[in-house]
């Protein structure tokens, strides 16, 4: 304690040291090893050598281009769908929730505490061929009599949309919740109709939340492989499926690492653009 009183400037460094050392050793250093592994060649029988060859990257980019493109497409559609569903819902909770606001929010978040895999398997049941939804859609003729939902791109995107929904909903909710309702009254007093008031007042104020939500939904969505595996077929596989099977099934560590590095590089570009636009303070809330 005496030391701290004499050196008050050391206090923050002592507070952050244990956590940052942990993250340094188990987050930053592993990324270095990922990069280094991606520049190795060889196989599991003969061993892997550091060859600094970029062939893993070109192989990944050429051979698995469909999966890479699909990941971006699925993640983009799922992010957009989550935005369209989440915005009115959290707008309702934040502006019309009244005294029930907190409890509605609990109802919104609680489902996502149920184990991710169990939730995804529930979608398997919901979208199954003999399930209710497929039956109704076949009856009204929206899909053919032998049409399916499960094992299609639709099922995979629907699963991704659902599973990452809170990442979209919560930042928008925080943005909408913080803003002063009197601004809307003022807009009304100044003869703005509700639509105009929404477009000129509410929407701009909620944009940082929309931006944050988009980023935090898109990133994990792009790396997902569970939905494609449980709700799709190999025709719907994404880059995550390739990385996971190369790593854990085929045991081609260098190629799998190259895939993971490419994914991470794409995402880092996004994060830095985001940090430049909004500043680092916003990053951790």
């Amino acid at each position: 304690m005496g030391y701290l009183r004499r050196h008050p400037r050391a206090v923050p460094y002592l507070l952050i040291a244990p956590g940052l050392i942990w993250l340094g050793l188990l987050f930053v250093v592993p990324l270095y090893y990922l990069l280094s592994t991606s520049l190795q060649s060889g196989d599991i029988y003969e061993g892997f050598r550091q060859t600094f060859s970029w062939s893993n990257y070109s192989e990944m980019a050429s051979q698995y281009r469909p999966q890479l493109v699909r990941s971006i497409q699925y993640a983009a559609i799922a992010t957009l769908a989550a935005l369209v569903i989440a915005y009115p819902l959290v707008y309702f909770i934040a502006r019309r929730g009244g005294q029930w606001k907190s409890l509605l929010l609990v109802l919104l978040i609680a489902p996502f505490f149920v184990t991710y895999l169990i939730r995804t398997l529930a979608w398997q049941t919901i979208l199954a061929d003999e399930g209710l939804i497929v039956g109704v859609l076949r009856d009204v003729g929206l899909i053919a009599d032998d049409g399916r939902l499960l094992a299609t791109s639709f099922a995979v995107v629907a699963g991704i949309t659902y599973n990452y929904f809170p990442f979209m909903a919560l930042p928008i909710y925080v943005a909408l919740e913080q803003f002063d309702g009197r601004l809307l009254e003022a807009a009304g007093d100044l003869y703005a109709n509700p639509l105009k008031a929404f477009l000129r007042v509410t929407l701009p104020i909620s944009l940082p939340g929309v931006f944050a939500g988009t980023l935090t939904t898109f990133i994990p969505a792009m790396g997902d492989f569970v939905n494609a595996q449980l709700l799709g077929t190999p025709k719907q596989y994404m880059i995550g499926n390739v990385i996971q099977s190369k790593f854990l099934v085929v045991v081609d560590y260098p190629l799998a690492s190259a895939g993971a590095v490419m994914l991470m590089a794409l995402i880092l570009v996004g994060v830095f653009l985001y940090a430049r636009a909004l500043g680092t303070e916003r990053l951790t809330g």
Partner: protein
Amino acid sequence: MRGLRRFLGRHLLTAFAILGFVYILLPIAVIALFSFNDPAGKYNYNWQGFTFQYWREVLAIPALRDAIIVSIEIALLVSVISTILGTLIALALVRHLFRGRSSTNLLIFLPMSTPEIVMGASLLALFLNLGVSTGFVTILLAHVTFCVSFVVVTVKARVTGFDRRLEEAAMDLGANVTRTFLRVTFPLILPGIGAAALLSFALSLDDFVITNFTKGTVITFPVYIWGAARIGVPVQVNVIGTMIFLIAVGIMAVGVLVSVVRARRDRAIAAQAVEAH
């Protein structure tokens, strides 16, 4: 005309919100419903008949029971370690201006914005290159790594809203630094720390992707489900899913009620003070 439009606007939004909640809760309803199903074969996809059997025999499958025990052990340890590490960082970020602040913010944000598969793959790359054999300890190390950032964000939100004058008052009344922290600061940020601990517990319990890379031969609850998904998931998994939902709703509802009661009490005290004045 304007009235009609307003009426429509109002009810359109309500209708949309109801549909939204149906969408959010539908899978949970399915999970709960099928926890009472009595499936004919090993696949629990079609409704066959109502039974309480699997709620009574929730721990009857030894492999599933062991997986749950492993998951809970890991989640408890992860929750303790990551809450300590994260709370210290949150205190530093809110209370102190120091060189390296923005890099610290960035280092906290990055793990949250790294896809799980990249984090899992990089940890496995580390363990492979260093010759560390994967298992219980490596799962623990991995889980703490992704939980710390969430703890920082959760505790930070609480510490930011904290009135520093309370600490100054304690100091003016003769409390030293340690006493001020233990008697004033700590109790005030305790709800934030509690929320962060619960969140890390839940995140650890839920994780499959990173665990899959760092597990070795250890089987956690999600790893068990993944394995069972191919051969038919036992009904007990639905029972546990339903229980997790009910526990989550229960804990959060209690949290909401406590804060509502507190706010009311504070308002009452303030009103009395004004009257007495």
